[in-house]
């Protein structure tokens, strides 16, 4: 395979700006897929991705294209996740490419995520090929958008192909740009093997399939390969590429190529994205740069609504983890919720996706606790503790210094909403850094924000205060000291561990009041009065009461028709399963969930 005929590239786009549709059109134009076999948006394999229009896991497809110069080219299209939670995966996918197609919506222009990913691509020395999509829309303004790309990103964009992926308009121009603008990969097939893992997934027949970009050397079936970060050695069973629908075992992969390796790998934990694959007998000197272990940022307790489903939940989490090494979980016991798991996620979206998959694919009814970040606590004796579960927060008397994780946030929005955004960020304890105009109507704001202020509902509120126009992106920036307190919720005098959380002192009172109100609304009247209290240490700072019920009776039983009473019994029995018994108080699942969404 001559390297100069290979083009490795990815597509960068904001959600809804048409990445998947363009990918489908490219597949179609290169006749990789028979049109009748095409499902909409082929590259996104998971239901949730399809419904939310988000690409979660990267995939790579090999395509053949005969260009206008009469030559045949091999395209490797590497799909990248679009969301900030998966930033590291994005960076590894980019490292597998020489170029990136930047898809910009002809009416909406550049968004925060696109910008972040484009900068990432430029950092990786990728050739960025801008494409203006959705020119069929009445509100399309390709000239303005091209000017914006030039101003904001600083790359020439006036000759960017104007396309409509939906209508299939001008797709050839994009394909020609890939040939002419994106450089061919470099690399020597004779050198020791050096290949970058940019994705992996678990296949129940072949074991873990790793997606690689071979940078140097050649990998062949029968070779012993070593994964350098973990040191694990495997014998290659298949090496090849993926066409639109299946894996094609090619026997080998050479420098410059993108493809997959199957080597009877049992655990996805061995195959870390970013790791380097080399030949065990003839290893390369040093691994590729940029590898790091991905650490979860957001933690939450996940419990089965029906305690008897604990085993099912464990099994489901284990299965999900087969395909998602960034999901972590360990058993946890709550007095209120019984047996469950403390789960770690890359971010909020990741958390929501996991919860949704557990409920949808594994049919589990869940109670989740409020998401928590990892706090860094220095004790008076000098010991440093990292706290991801409010229950474990040390006694304030023992704390010398508490720190919380901060993020650098970037928000892009029409300038009309600057006031609303500033108010929101202020309210979330943000530090304003700067603001710049991208053009006459759009601004980019930079804030430093505590991660714990954005893990609840920041993005939802931002959307609602900007009529959906603002986009948001963030990256971690480390820890800063903060005035933190642990807030406990008591029902009928007993602390409910699952409802405790850590909050900034200034937020403690309003949050305590809000939670008490929410609980009052969501705990049904019972046979006994239920006091709800919020407390810091021993001090009660908010109180509500669920009054005892006064009337709950079927007065009449006529002519021996007891069907209504039986129905009621059945309902009570069912309802009981969804209730948690805390002392004498019955708390429904909804009450636990209600405190997660305080602003709605």
């Amino acid at each position, binding site marked *: 395979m001559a390297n100069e005929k290979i083009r490795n590239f990815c597509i960068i786009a904001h959600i809804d700006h048409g990445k998947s549709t363009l990918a489908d059109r490219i597949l179609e134009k290169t006749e990789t897929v028979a049109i009748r076999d095409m499902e909409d948006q082929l590259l996104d394999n998971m239901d949730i991705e399809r419904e939310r229009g988000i690409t979660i896991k990267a995939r790579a497809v090999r395509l053949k294209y005969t260009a206008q110069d009469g030559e045949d080219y091999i395209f490797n299209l590497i799909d990248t996740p679009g969301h900030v939670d998966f930033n590291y995966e994005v960076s590894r996918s980019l490292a597998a490419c020489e170029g990136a197609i930047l898809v910009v919506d002809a009416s909406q222009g550049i968004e925060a995520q696109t910008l972040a990913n484009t900068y990432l691509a430029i950092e990786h020395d990728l050739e960025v090929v801008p494409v203006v999509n959705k020119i069929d829309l009445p509100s399309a303004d390709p000239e303005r958008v091209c000017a914006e790309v030039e101003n904001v990103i600083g790359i020439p964009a006036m000759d960017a192909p104007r396309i409509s992926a939906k209508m299939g308009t001008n797709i050839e121009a994009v394909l020609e740009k890939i040939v002419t603008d994106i450089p061919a990969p470099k690399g020597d097939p004779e050198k020791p093997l050096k290949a970058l893992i940019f994705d992996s997934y678990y296949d129940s027949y072949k074991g873990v399939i790793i997606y690689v970009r071979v940078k140097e050397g050649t990998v062949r079936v029968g070779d012993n390969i070593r994964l350098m970060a973990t040191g694990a050695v495997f014998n290659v069973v298949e090496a090849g590429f993926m066409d639109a629908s299946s894996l094609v075992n090619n026997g080998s992969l050479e420098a410059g190529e993108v493809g997959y390796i199957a080597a009877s790998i049992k655990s996805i934990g061995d195959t870390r994205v970013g790791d380097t694959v080399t030949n065990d007998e003839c290893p390369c000197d040093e691994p590729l740069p940029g590898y790091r272990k991905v650490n979860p940022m957001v933690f939450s307790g996940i419990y089965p609504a029906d305690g008897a489903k604990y085993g099912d939940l464990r099994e489901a989490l284990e299965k999900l983890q087969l395909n998602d090494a960034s999901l972590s979980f360990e058993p946890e016991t709550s007095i209120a919720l019984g047996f469950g798991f403390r789960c770690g996620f890359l971010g909020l979206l990741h958390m929501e996706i996991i919860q949704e998959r557990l409920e949808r694919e594994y049919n589990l009814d869940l109670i989740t606790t409020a998401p928590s970040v990892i706090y860094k606590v220095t004790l008076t004796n000098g010991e440093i503790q990292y706290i991801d579960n409010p229950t474990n927060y040390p006694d304030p008397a023992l704390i010398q210094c508490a720190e919380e994780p901060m993020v650098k946030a970037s928000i892009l929005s029409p300038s009309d909403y600057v006031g609303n955004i500033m108010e929101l960020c202020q309210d979330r304890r943000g530090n304003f850094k700067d603001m710049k105009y991208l053009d006459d109507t759009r601004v980019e704001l930079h804030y430093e924000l505590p991660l714990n202020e954005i893990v609840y509902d920041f993005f939802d509120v931002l959307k609602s205060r900007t009529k959906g126009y603002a986009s948001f992106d963030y990256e971690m920036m480390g820890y800063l000291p903060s005035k933190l307190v642990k807030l406990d919720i008591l029902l009928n005098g007993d602390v409910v561990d699952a409802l405790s959380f850590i909050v900034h002192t200034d937020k403690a009172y309003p949050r305590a009041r809000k939670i008490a109100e929410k609980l009052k609304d969501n705990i049904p009247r019972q*046979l*006994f009065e239920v006091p709800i209290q919020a407390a810091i240490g021993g001090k009660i700072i908010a109180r509500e009461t669920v009054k005892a019920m006064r*009337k709950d009776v079927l007065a009449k*039983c006529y002519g021996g028709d007891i069907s209504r009473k039986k129905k009621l*019994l059945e309902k009570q029995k069912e309802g*009981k399963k969804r209730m948690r018994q805390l002392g004498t108080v019955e708390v429904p699942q909804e009450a636990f969930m209600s405190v997660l969404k305080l602003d709605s």
Partner: protein
Amino acid sequence: MNDLGIYIHVPFCGRKCPYCDFYSIAFSPSALNAYTEAVLRNIKHYSEPERTVSTIYFGGGTPSLLTPEQLQNIVTSVRDNFALSDGAEITLEANPNTLTPEKLSKLLDAGINRLSIGIQSLLDDELKMLGRAHTAERAEKAVRDAAAAGFSNISCDLMIALPEQTPEKLRRSAERLAALPIQHISAYILKPEDGTPFAGSDLLKALPDDELSAALYLETVQIMAEHGFAQYEISNFARKGFESRHNCRYWKCQDYLGIGPAAHSCYQGKRFAVPRDIELFSSSAQQPVEITDDAPYGFEEKAMLGLRLTEGIDLRDFPEHRDSIERKVPALAEAGYINFDGSKLSLTPEGFLVSNAVIGQLIF
């Protein structure tokens, strides 16, 4: 063989009350004839000559629309096809307007020995609001006429928690009722049923809230006690020895056979119901039935029904569930919802008010 109670559902009304969701249709003499024939056919069909029948209950609808002759034919048929006991309680639900002195004595002759009169209130404004066709005075006269005719077992219905009802209004109405020559009072908390005209009307807004409803109920229990009517079930009060034997069958899980459209039975080890269709009933050789439960009298059912009675349940009857129930006793007893003497468990009036929750808590 256990003795049996027979329930006859008479689905005819002169007019439909706006709060009522029981099955009934406008009556016509010909429909009444066809219906009576079908009842007689069914009694024959279920015939068990050896089996003692100790209660018959004509419920409705407005069973007093049946002629004394029709009623007599039915009672006679029961006597011919079953062993109707000498002291059998034979109840007829009656609308005060249908009870004339002549009719009353004919009813006695027909074998009816207990009347359940649908008075509901003895305040004219409340009667009007409820859409009842009688006045308070007419109702009182009907009761006095019945007593004078020789009825010595009379029950009256009283509705509580009516729109705009206050404890004072309730007391006026209830005391007037308790002063009549009657032996039994059924006092029901009004519940707007979906689909009734009442549930769609503005009156709903004037309904007492839970707090006031509870106060009205407890006031009723108090007034009844003051006048010698002891509570024996959530909604039923009687002078000693006049508890409705038929209705107690329901709470005590004793057999009853229901005949007529919308009638329910617990008979020969099954619960079943007849479809709410008068045409179908009258034209069928045997009433069609839908089985609703083929294994009745389980623990949950027995406990749920038994706890509606002031005598409650005896935990010695439920050895497997005793520990689980007893664990829940202290908190409920302390709150005043139940009485427990170590084996007998019963609800207090405060407990009856929230009996769904109390019973649910005890048995689950």
